[in-house]
C-alpha cells in the first residue's frame, strides 16, 4: 500500500524538489494527528499495564509504599481455592457464551437471510439487536424480577406447564446458568447482526451454482457458506470470548456472586481483592492472569484465522 501510494505522487512535484519538503511536512502532520491517541494509549493503557505487572510483584496496601516480594503473589494464586472457583465459573461463562451466543446467532442470521418481506427482516433484526444496546445493568434488573422464585414470571409460566418452581437466583447448581441465559439473551443480537452482514456478502450465484450441482441446503451451508463467513465467525468468537471473560455487572445484579462463590466471576473477585481488601499486589497478579488469558485467546485465534479463514 505504501509502495503504490508513492507511485501516485505527481511526478512534477517530485522533480521540482518540493517532494522532500512535502514528504517532511506530511510526516510531521502524521505524527501530530496520531499524537493524541498515542498519548492516551501510553498514559491510560501501556503505563497502567506496566504498573500492574510491577504491582503484581509487590505487597501493597495503598497506605504504605509497595514492598517487593518477587513471585509470592503468583504462588498464592496457585493455592487460592476461591480463585480456582471463580476461574472455573468464568470458564463456564466463556464456553457457554461462545457456543450458545454464536450458535443461536448463526441460526437466527440464516433464518433472517431467507427470502421474506423486507419490513419483516427489518423488524426482526431490530428486535433481536436492541437488547445489545441496553446496559446490562438494566437488563439484569428486569430479569432479576422475572427469575424471582415466588413472584417471578418464569416460574409462573413453568408452573402452568407443570414444572415445579426453581430457585433461579440462589441455587449453587442453577444460578450460574441463569447468568448464562441473561448473557446469551442480551448478546445474541449483536453476533446475529455481524453474521447477517457476512451472509449478505456471500454471492448468491455461488449458492445457486451449488444447488444446481445437486448440493442440498446443509451441504451448501457447510461447504460454501461457512468458509465464506469464516472471518465473521472468528470475529464473533473473539469478541464473545473477551466479553465473557469480563462478565461482571449482570452477576452483581442477579446474584451478587452467590450463593457462596458459585456465580462469582474473576473480575468480581479481582475488584473485591483490590478495592475492598486493598490487597493491591495480589489483585494485580489476578489482573495479570486475566491479561494472559485474553492475550492467549486472541493470539490463538489470529493464528487459526491465518490458516482457516477464506479470503476472497
Amino acid at each position: 500500500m505504501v509502495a503504490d501510494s508513492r507511485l501516485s505522487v505527481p511526478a512534477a512535484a517530485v522533480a521540482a524538489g518540493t517532494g522532500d519538503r512535502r514528504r517532511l511536512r506530511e510526516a510531521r502532520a502524521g505524527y501530530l494527528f496520531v499524537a493524541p491517541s498515542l498519548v492516551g494509549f501510553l498514559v491510560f493503557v501501556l503505563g497502567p499495564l506496566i504498573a500492574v505487572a510491577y504491582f503484581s510483584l509487590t505487597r501493597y496496601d495503598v497506605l504504605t509504599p509497595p514492598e517487593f516480594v518477587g513471585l509470592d503473589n503468583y504462588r498464592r494464586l496457585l493455592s487460592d481455592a476461591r480463585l480456582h472457583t471463580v476461574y472455573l465459573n468464568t470458564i463456564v461463562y466463556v464456553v457457554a457464551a461462545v457456543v450458545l451466543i454464536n450458535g443461536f446467532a448463526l441460526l437466527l442470521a440464516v433464518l433472517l437471510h431467507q427470502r421474506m418481506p423486507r419490513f419483516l427482516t427489518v423488524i426482526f433484526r431490530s428486535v433481536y439487536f436492541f437488547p445489545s444496546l441496553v446496559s446490562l445493568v438494566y437488563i439484569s434488573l428486569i430479569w432479576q424480577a422475572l427469575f424471582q422464585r415466588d413472584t417471578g414470571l418464569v416460574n409462573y409460566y413453568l408452573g402452568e406447564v407443570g414444572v415445579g418452581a426453581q430457585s433461579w437466583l440462589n441455587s449453587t447448581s442453577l444460578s450460574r446458568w441463569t447468568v448464562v441465559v441473561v448473557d446469551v439473551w442480551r448478546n445474541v443480537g449483536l453476533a446475529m447482526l455481524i453474521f447477517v452482514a457476512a451472509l449478505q456478502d456471500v454471492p448468491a450465484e455461488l449458492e445457486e451454482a451449488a444447488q444446481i450441482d445437486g448440493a442440498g441446503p446443509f451441504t451448501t451451508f457447510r461447504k460454501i457458506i461457512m468458509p465464506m463467513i469464516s472471518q465473521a465467525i472468528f470475529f464473533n468468537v473473539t469478541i464473545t470470548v473477551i466479553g465473557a471473560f469480563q462478565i461482571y455487572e449482570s452477576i452483581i445484579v442477579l446474584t451478587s456472586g452467590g450463593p457462596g462463590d458459585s456465580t462469582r466471576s474473576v473480575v468480581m473477585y479481582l475488584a473485591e481483592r483490590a478495592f475492598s481488601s486493598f490487597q493491591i499486589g495480589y489483585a494485580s497478579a489476578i489482573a495479570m492472569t486475566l491479561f494472559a488469558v485474553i492475550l492467549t485467546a486472541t493470539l490463538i485465534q489470529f493464528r487459526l484465522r491465518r490458516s482457516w479463514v477464506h479470503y476472497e
Partner: protein
Amino acid sequence: MSDTALTAGRADVVPRRRRMTRRPTVGTVVCVVVLALGAIGMLAPFAYMVVTALKSAQHAYDLPPDWYPKEFQWQNFSDAIHGPLPLLRNLWNSAFIAGLTTIGMLITAPMAGYAFAHLRFPGRNGVFVLLLAALMVPIQVTVIPLFLIMRNLHLINTPWSLILPQVTGAFGVFLMRQFFLSVPRELFEAAKIDGANEWTIYRAVALPLVRNGLSALGILTFLTSWNAYFAPSIFLNSQDSATLPLALVLMRGPFSTGQINIIMAATTFAVVPAFIVYLIAQRWIIAGLTSSAVKG
C-alpha cells in the same frame, strides 16, 4: 457499511428473485414463525418492564401477569425520581460523561485514523500495531493503576476519572481508518497539488467524506459510555457522582423501596433514551459494528 449494503442490494435483484420461484413458501413461513416466536421472547422482558412500571403497589406482583397496561400509575415515575437517590442528577452525570467522551473521541480517533490511512510517516505501521494491541487490554486489567492515578489527581468521584481514559481508544482509530481507506486517495492528492496544508485537507476534504463513519463512531462511543458499569462502580463512590446504572443498582440494593413497580419505573426511565437513540440512529450503529467485523 454503505458499500456493503450496496453490493448486497445489487446481488439481491436478479438471483434472489429466481431463487424465490423455486423455493417453497412453506419454508419461508416456518422461518417467519420461528423468528416471530423468538422475537416475542426478546420483547417480553421489556413489555414486563413497562407494564410493571405503570402498576400500583398492590397489583405489582399480580399473577398471571398483564401483558398490556391496565392501570396507569404515572406517579411511579415521579416517586422514582424523587426517591432516596438523586436520579435526575445521575442522569445528568451519565449524559455529561457520555457526551464529553464522545466529543473527545470524535476529535482524536478520526485524526489518527486519517493519518494511518493516508499520511506517510516513518514508524506508521509499528504505531498502528501498538495501538491495535490496546484492544487486548480491557479496563478490568488496568483498573488498579488507573484508580491510583485518578486518586493521585483527586479525580475520584468526578466525571473526569471516566472521561479522560476514554477520549482516545483503539477501536475508534481502527474504525475510522477503515472508513478513510474506502475513500480514494486521489481526492486528497488534488487538494495537495493546490497547495493546501494537511490540516486543511483533513478538515475540508477528508472529514466530510466520512460523515457516516463519524456518526457510527459517535453513537457507539456514546452508548458504550452510557451503558458502562464496571469502571464507574470503581471510580464513583458517592450518590451525587453516580451514573444512572450505578444509581439503579443502589436503588434496588440498600436504598430499595422494596417496590418492583418503582424500580421498573426507574429502569424504564433509563432504557427509553437508549431506545430513542436506537430508533434514530440504527443505520449508523449497524454500519459501525458490521464494518469492523466484515472488513476487518
